């Protein structure tokens, strides 16, 4: 059940190494903060789950942020009612997001194409608006759902885990507080696990059925497959991933707000997946990291940093360089992101992973010309 093909196993090992080593290789990019790396990991989990629906079945949901939000709210509520232990909170979040996506998916999947997209968008936007208005008792409206010292925390109280001092309680994993790198490594482990699950699904007959549905629905039903439950399962799985991502957001920072359910969040995960490469294993992760990097690092670059960066240039040239490049960073990071989208789609149809694939095909082609037996012989020695 846990076996992987050789190729997938290698991918998984490489992926795990890359994720665990994030603090090392992100340092030169100025992004090696645990808080930021957590965001990277969480966005990647969200995108991996989204890709199971969009990448495999081709159904483009524009409402997955709703499940992200539900995951967050559930997590904070579990903290408030049961206690600060992380695992139950995450499990509840996944279950509730799964149920929520079951309902929305059941109705939305009665339609295909853009009609499906708009149905998911409409459901999510309704959830978002209601979280702000009518559901304020559950969501605490615009303020967002926060922990309070007076929360019941039944389990914590039963085990005598009182809050000491004046502050709010911290989430704990088996009794240990997670701060800084602890939070990042929790997210990293969950990310690697998510990647593994996505690998399993991709390589399974179930995954093949989903891909066949994307390819030819009519053939699929004349081949004896009941399409609806397949689609609904994929929808719920991706909804549960979104719930998991939402839970991790609240685990690393115990609050939940309605803005997590807004369509821009749904749009974000769509863009991440397409940017990286729809239907590929690594694509969504790469897309998620790229977008998060721009959002968090590019937006933080300011004049002084640019001046320092271009310090080696003569004054006049430096001023020009700083003025021009300042349009693309800081407040202007959106511009760079927009241009990135355009450039990627124009030059790399199929996303970043398509570029990687072409590159590796190119190199294979070149190395393929070296006589094969020689390498084999040398390997045998």
């Amino acid at each position: 059940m846990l076996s992987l093909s050789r190729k997938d196993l290698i991918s998984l090992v490489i992926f795990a190494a890359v994720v665990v080593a994030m603090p090392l290789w992100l340092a030169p990019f100025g992004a090696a903060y645990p808080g930021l790396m957590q965001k990277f990991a969480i966005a990647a989990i969200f995108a991996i789950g989204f890709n199971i629906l969009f990448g495999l079945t081709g159904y483009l949901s524009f409402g997955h942020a709703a499940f992200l939000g539900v995951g967050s709210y559930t997590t904070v509520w579990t903290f408030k009612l049961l206690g600060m232990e992380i695992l139950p909170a995450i499990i509840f979040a996944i279950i509730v997001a799964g149920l929520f996506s079951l309902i929305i998916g059941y109705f939305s999947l009665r339609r295909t194409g853009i009609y499906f997209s708009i149905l998911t968008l409409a459901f999510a936007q309704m959830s978002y608006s209601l979280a702000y208005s009518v559901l304020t008792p559950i969501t605490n409206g615009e303020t967002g759902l926060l922990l309070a010292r007076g929360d019941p925390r039944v389990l914590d109280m039963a085990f005598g885990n009182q809050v000491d001092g004046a502050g709010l309680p911290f989430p704990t994993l088996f009794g240990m507080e997670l701060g800084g790198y602890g939070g990042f490594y929790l997210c990293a482990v969950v990310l690697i696990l998510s990647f593994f699950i996505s690998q399993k699904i991709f390589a399974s007959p179930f995954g093949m059925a989903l891909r066949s549905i994307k390819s030819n629905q009519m053939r699929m039903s004349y081949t004896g497959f009941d399409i609806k439950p397949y689609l609904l399962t994929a929808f719920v799985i991706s909804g549960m991933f979104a719930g998991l991502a939402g839970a991790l957001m609240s685990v690393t920072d115990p609050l939940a707000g309605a803005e997590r359910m807004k369509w821009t969040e749904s749009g974000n995960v769509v863009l991440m997946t397409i940017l990286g490469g729809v239907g590929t294993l690594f694509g969504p992760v790469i897309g998620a990291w790229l977008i998060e990097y721009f959002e968090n690092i590019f937006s933080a670059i300011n004049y002084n940093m640019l001046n320092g960066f271009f310090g080696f240039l003569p004054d006049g040239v430096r001023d020009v360089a700083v003025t021009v490049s300042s349009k693309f960073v800081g407040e202007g990071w959106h511009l760079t992101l927009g241009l990135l989208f355009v450039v990627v789609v124009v030059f790399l149809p199929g996303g970043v992973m398509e570029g990687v694939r072409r590159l590796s095909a190119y190199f294979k082609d070149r190395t393929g010309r070296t006589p094969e037996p020689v390498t084999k012989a040398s390997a045998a020695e």
Partner: protein
Amino acid sequence: MNVFLTQLLNGLDKGGAYALIALGLTLVFGTLGVVNFAHGALFMLGCFCAVAFRYLLTIETVTIDPEQLSPWGAPLEVKTPVIQAWLGDFGAVLVDYSVPISILLAVPLMLLIGIAMERGLIKHFYKRTHAEQILVTFGLAIVLAEIVKTFFGPNPIPQPIPTALRGAADVGSWLGFAPHAITYPWWRLIYLMFSGVVIAGVFAFLQFTTYGMVVRAGMADREAVSILGINIDRRFTVVFGLAAVVAGVAGVMYTPLLAPNYMLGMDFLVLSFVVVVVGGMGSLGGAVAAGFLLGILQSFASMNEVRAIFPGIDQVIIYLVAVVILLVRPRGLMGRRGVMEG
């Protein structure tokens, strides 16, 4: 009855804006097969045509008038718009009517922008997947919004209604109600009529010109038309330009009702997609009907009486209606089979 009519009127002008945006969006969908996420940005660009035009008109010269003194005793600085200095009273009228007049600027400009967008970028994406179309047009929308932001800043820039049109029309008395029972701001009335004229114009264009006939044929069956040897690509460019113009002028006229900022396009984008899909893919009439329907329903849902019964209904009404319509009618109000269903 009065309340009903008032809300109906309030919904109509918003519905007009939705309908105009949705019309262009669905034209591009139907003929070009492109999911254009930059369409909201075109509306936003239209708004900023009005803003830019007003900027140009109100460039001022400062003269020092030694005869007049300011309250502090210094010679008074008199600021006169250049246009007024040149053209006298006519200049003042121009400034006053800057919004409607800027349509004259917006039409050619939006046409150019539309054609440039289509030729430069969109045309390469006809045969690509919808996902890629979304990514590239969304990227374009962001770039356009950011460019506008660099020029006009992040804050909304309100545009004035021409002085003569600032009051409200006593619509009630026209319909035989008591005077002042139902009043409706002139500008909203103008917007409503304007959108009606533009919609009629687009339909007439499609109905009565050869261009329009080819476009309609292309919407019905693209392959067939291209087999006939008609240079469909050039017509598509024109369609895209037309959609840009419609979105643009819709934006121009909307500026007095909603002060535009660079993010406006994104807000309208989502709504107009809902409108188009509720109307039904590939149906122009459906888009217009859905635009007005949703505008009116939104207006009714924001009534206090309604909100008292269904709290929060004003926030979700559009999406609720969209869900109900799409669940009851598989292809929206008037959608055609097989368009964007795959």
